[in-house]
């Protein structure tokens, strides 16, 4: 073995000819991205205008060409040789800015964008000239030639292997070995010619086009290229893209601009100053902007376009092939994320900002990426902590970026509140207008009757007909009003039922978990008895385990008791006066128990609130809170107080349920709502009470938390907030 080892102490990489495929065709996922990469290079080269021409691309022939021409700084022979022809060249990594005077932040970094050409066509004629240069440089790269060389090399390798095997078989030591050709061994034709005075720039003339480009392909390319530059930033040095596809009427000579936003229903602009940032605030059907101090992620400009169904239909009709595709973030006017993402199916698009995930938590009033176009502008100088991630498909996950995402979602929530309010207002308006129409018809009928009384005989037949028609119309409108009312109530019921069902499903699951865990524990204790009894050394455990069995059985009993209460209750929805329900429980049903345990109960609810829900559902919430508070105050030496206060504000109802008992440890504040978390096992606490409260409140779209105790240093206050929308019937 040793004699075959080379003397050299170092080895070097070589690239197989097929490398060009890896870097081009296989690395770049689709044609649009390839085009995007090449246009992006023009941006990095300080171009102000790029022309993308598609010639005879409908049916592929030797005439088919794609030309990308820019008026950037161009390249010299040295630049082509030392940078353009160096794979993965690092000039853009080391110089993160393009040359003076533009100093653009360069977008290409990997040094492989130029191989994107191979995705479009297999022959490239590159012509480039620098300003004031005497010569224009030309380079011809024919990927077909590479392909041929690759196939020849493969064939040679097979033949060589065959020859080696034959030589071995015949015992010959003469084995012909041809040095294989590598990627870097293939010559590309280069020549120079006199330059065109006063011009600079680079032209990529791509021929031997791979696939035909249909009208819709070009439209897609147009729409994606339009996203490269923010439509809102007007930079000192513009970057204009022109698309030229003479085969198709639409693209005779078309400047590429982002027109997607023309038909939006709502247009919102948030801007900033050195000290403040604008954000949205919805109040009573008015979407206003408020100023807040600059946030951790730095100042931003945000333009948001919302499309309702009608606007979406117009958009689809007028902007074929385009999609309303959510919020994009631009840095210094150029797209940062999602970067060159082309995905035809919306469902596969990545939801970087988490807009669509929210729909799982209640979709009646949420907007989705398919309803929005957003352009959020950040700058390198103003938002240094929002950093591009290395794969350029998102930003680095840090506090500032998380807050930026939170800010965006916050704006959407305000918009959602506003839209929900408007929907509700429209419903009320429609209802009112129907009533007015009905009144109008009534008075029309009575006027008609008066006219009929005084009208001459020859008009009587016609007036009679009119009277009947008016009467019928009035009946129809009345029925319409009733149906409208019924439908609205039905919708509210359906929404409520939907949330309750989701909760019940979760709930059944958790109940099963509780029962199973209790049974599992009982079984383990019983198993110990079966295996070990009698054994005096285990006596302490026999005693302990028998107690445990009893406690677990009691827990099971309480769970079953609770389930039984469901079967006894009426599952329908009904209007419930919350104030009456709580007063009935606290001051009547529990009055005896409270007096027996020497507990003082107070209810203080400012006004009656009626909600449509299941009675038992709400009663359980309050009963669980009462039961917890009784346990908490039981051992008080001093006064034992349980208090429930409630007040309504513009958009919600807040309920504070308090006691002056032993309180909840700070570290348990979140955990108390977990299923079977209990600190009162010895008092029969199964750890499901507050879980029931939490899941039910959540299913009503409300929130529940442990807040600072109303009693100061002792006791507990549970705060429940129930929003009015969207379940408010009209």
């Amino acid at each position, binding site marked *: 073995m040793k004699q075959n080892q080379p003397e050299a102490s170092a080895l070097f990489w070589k690239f197989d000819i097929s490398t060009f495929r890896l870097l081009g065709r296989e690395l770049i996922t689709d044609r649009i991205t390839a085009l995007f990469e090449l246009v992006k290079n023009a941006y990095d080269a300080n171009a102000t205008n790029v022309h993308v021409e598609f010639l005879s691309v409908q049916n592929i022939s030797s005439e088919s060409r794609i030309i990308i021409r820019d008026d950037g700084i161009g390249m010299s022979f040295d630049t082509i040789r030392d940078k353009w022809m160096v794979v993965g060249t690092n000039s853009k990594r080391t110089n993160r800015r393009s040359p003076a005077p533009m100093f653009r932040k360069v977008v290409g970094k990997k040094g492989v964008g130029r191989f994107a050409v191979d995705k479009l066509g297999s022959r490239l004629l590159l012509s480039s000239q620098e300003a004031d240069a005497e010569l224009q440089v030309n380079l011809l790269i024919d990927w077909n030639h590479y392909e041929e060389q690759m196939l020849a090399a493969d064939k040679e390798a097979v033949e060589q292997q065959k020859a080696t095997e034959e030589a071995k078989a015949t015992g010959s030591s003469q084995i012909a070995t041809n040095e294989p050709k590598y990627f870097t061994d293939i010559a590309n034709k280069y020549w120079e010619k006199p330059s065109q005075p006063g011009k600079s720039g680079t032209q990529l003339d791509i021929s031997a086009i791979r696939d035909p480009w249909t009208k819709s392909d070009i439209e897609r390319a147009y729409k994606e290229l339009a996203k490269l530059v923010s439509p809102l930033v007007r930079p000192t040095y513009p970057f204009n893209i022109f698309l030229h596809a003479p085969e198709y009427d639409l693209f005779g000579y078309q400047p590429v601009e982002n027109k997607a936003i023309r038909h939006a229903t709502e247009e919102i602009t948030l801007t900033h100053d050195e000290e403040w940032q604008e954000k949205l605030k919805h109040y009573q059907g008015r979407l206003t902007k408020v100023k807040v101090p600059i946030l951790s992620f730095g100042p931003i400009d945000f333009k948001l376009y919302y499309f309702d169904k009608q606007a979406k239909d117009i958009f689809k009709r007028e902007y074929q092939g385009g999609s309303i595709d959510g919020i994009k973030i631009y840095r210094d006017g150029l797209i940062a994320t999602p970067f060159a993402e082309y995905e035809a199916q919306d469902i596969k698009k990545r939801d970087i900002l988490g807009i669509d995930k929210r729909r799982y938590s209640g979709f009646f009033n949420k907007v989705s990426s398919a309803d929005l176009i957003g352009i959020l502008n950040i700058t390198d100088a103003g938002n240094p902590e929002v950093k591009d991630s290395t794969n350029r498909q998102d930003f680095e996950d840090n506090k500032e970026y998380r807050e930026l995402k939170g800010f965006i979602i916050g704006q959407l929530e305000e918009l959602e509140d506003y839209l929900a309010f408007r929907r509700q207002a429209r419903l009320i308006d429609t209802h009112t207008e129907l009533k007015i129409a009905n009144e109008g018809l009534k008075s029309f009928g009575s006027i008609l009757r008066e006219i009929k009384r005084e009208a001459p005989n020859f008009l009587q037949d016609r007036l009679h007909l009119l009277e009947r028609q008016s009467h019928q119309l009035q009946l129809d409108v009345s029925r319409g009003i009733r149906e409208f009312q019924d439908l609205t109530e039905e919708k509210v019921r359906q929404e409520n039922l939907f949330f309750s069902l989701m909760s019940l499903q979760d709930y059944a699951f958790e109940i099963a*978990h509780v029962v*199973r*865990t209790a*049974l*599992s*524990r009982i*079984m*383990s*204790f019983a*198993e*110990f008895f079966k*295996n070990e009894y009698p054994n005096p050394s*285990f006596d302490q*455990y026999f005693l*302990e*385990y028998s107690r445990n069995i009893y406690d677990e059985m009691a827990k099971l009993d309480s769970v079953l008791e609770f389930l039984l209460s469901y079967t006894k209750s009426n599952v329908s929805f009904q209007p419930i006066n919350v104030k009456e329900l709580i007063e009935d429980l606290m001051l009547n049903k529990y009055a005896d128990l409270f007096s027996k345990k020497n507990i003082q109960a107070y209810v203080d609810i400012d006004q009656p609130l009626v909600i449509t829900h299941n009675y038992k559902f709400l009663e359980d919430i309050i009963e669980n809170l009462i039961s917890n508070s009784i346990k908490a105050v039981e051992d008080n030496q001093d006064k034992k107080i349980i208090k429930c206060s409630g007040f309504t504000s513009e958009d919600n109802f807040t309920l504070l349920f308090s006691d002056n008992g032993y309180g909840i440890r700070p570290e348990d504040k979140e*955990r108390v709502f*977990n299923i079977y*978390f209990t600190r009162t096992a010895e008092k029969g606490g199964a750890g499901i009470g507050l879980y029931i409260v939490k899941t039910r409140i959540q299913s009503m779209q409300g929130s529940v938390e442990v807040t600072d105790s109303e009693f100061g240093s002792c006791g507990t206050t549970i705060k429940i907030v129930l929003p009015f929308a969207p379940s408010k019937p009209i």
Partner: protein
Amino acid sequence: MNNKTNIIVIDDDERIENHPLLVKLRQLYNNVEILSSPKEGTDYVATHLDQRNIIILDYKFDADRSTGRDVLEKIRQISKLIPVIIWTANGDRLTEIADFVNYKAYAILNKSPYEPVLESVSRADKELNNSLEGAIEEWVLLQDKNELDKPYMINANGKSYSLRDILREVREQTPFGQRIEKDLIMLTIDLLIRNKESLDIK
């Protein structure tokens, strides 16, 4: 009761302390540790690789929302050989069976009855005893205690390993540990084939 295997129970249920399984394990094994969080568990395993361990791992951890699967993945980054028994109250809900198989869980058992868990621990203990790892351990521990941390072997790159290091490398299944393991197995087979009961050391 003279078993030197460590039984490590990772479970965040405070009531586990007096669970019948623990009572029985303490009766059978010298050292039974209860660790109440995934982090405590993995930290303990990482710092006790020079002991023989069997882990009983709960599936559901409420506090940090991790599951037994996540903990097992972390343990496997530390050691490929430690037997880990998944102990769960919700066997039929496990959706990560494939992961458990891939991470070589020793067994997946219900919280009750506990007898199969005891049997599984006992079987794992015997396997550890009869494994190459067990044999190396026996042999290493037979050596003079003062010699355990002294350089014992130097590899081709000039790195030296003490006896304790070698045992750890085998437990962590590092390339060096795997190589040692393979060499020892080949040596054993060679000796058995040649009917040799001792090495020819000249």
